[in-house]
């Protein structure tokens, strides 16, 4: 995809990323954050959580990965994410994005991104600035 192909208001293709326990354990090992609240449903519940949680930085990284699939070869310059609510492991999660600004001078676009949990509540929201060099 080129900068010229992007229009204000464009929606990124909706995705349902793999947040199974197997995948989350794989991530926590890569992130050196193998804590029970991320990898053990019972341990997480004992902490008062609804179940093992998808780490916030994993949700953030999944949003970046979605941007790469939408615009192969693009370069993410900034990615700011707010962790609003729980995203639980082994549940159905939806990630979405929409183009909210374009800049002809810098050839960058701004994309608003969300991670929605199985109950339809926003778990993570963010904004990416994406460069098309």
């Amino acid at each position, binding site marked *: 995809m080129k900068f010229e192909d992007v229009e204000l208001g464009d929606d990124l293709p909706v995705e349902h990323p793999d947040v199974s326990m197997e*995948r989350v354990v*794989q*991530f926590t090992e890569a*992130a050196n954050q193998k804590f029970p609240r991320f990898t053990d449903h019972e341990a997480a519940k004992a902490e008062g959580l609804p179940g093992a949680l998808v780490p916030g930085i994993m949700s*953030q*990284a999944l949003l*970046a990965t979605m941007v790469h699939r939408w615009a192969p070869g693009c370069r993410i310059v900034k*990615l700011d994410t*707010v962790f609003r609510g729980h995203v639980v492991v082994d549940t159905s999660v939806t990630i979405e994005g929409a183009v909210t600004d374009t800049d002809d001078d810098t050839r960058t676009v701004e994309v608003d991104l969300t991670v929605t949990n199985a109950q339809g509540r926003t778990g993570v929201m963010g904004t990416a600035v994406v460069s098309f060099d």
Partner: protein
Amino acid sequence: MTSDITDGLDEVKKKWEGVEFDLATFEVTEQKMLAWAEALGEQDPRFIDPSHRDFQAHPTFCTHLVSRRILPEDFPVLGSSGIDGGKAIELHVPVRCGDTLEAVAAVAEIYPKTGRSGTMVFVVQRMSFTNQNGETVATVDWRMIRN
């Protein structure tokens, strides 16, 4: 008399905003780069194919690199509990296989905000990463919310 979480906050800001409190070094290996990208289901060859001409770490790679301390040793305990408010990453030069990253941790900002659940204090820890060539590769801001 009840105490407000913002009591004395101006003094805390004056004392701690801008203070650098830790330095950490990270070696970037092919194994670590691939483990991160593959755990995300990444398919862009720049991040999963070491033979790609532009092979580099995933843009969120630095978000998991943490200093020994999250906040300075004598930083005051604000409120009675805390939650992770999120991270912001700004990227400059790509992180490459074999890089040695040096990161400086600092208290970037301290500010109050009032919402439905009352007044909270945001403490932003900033890690600034440079490579062995002295180039800034990334800045990661971590918002910690105290209430």
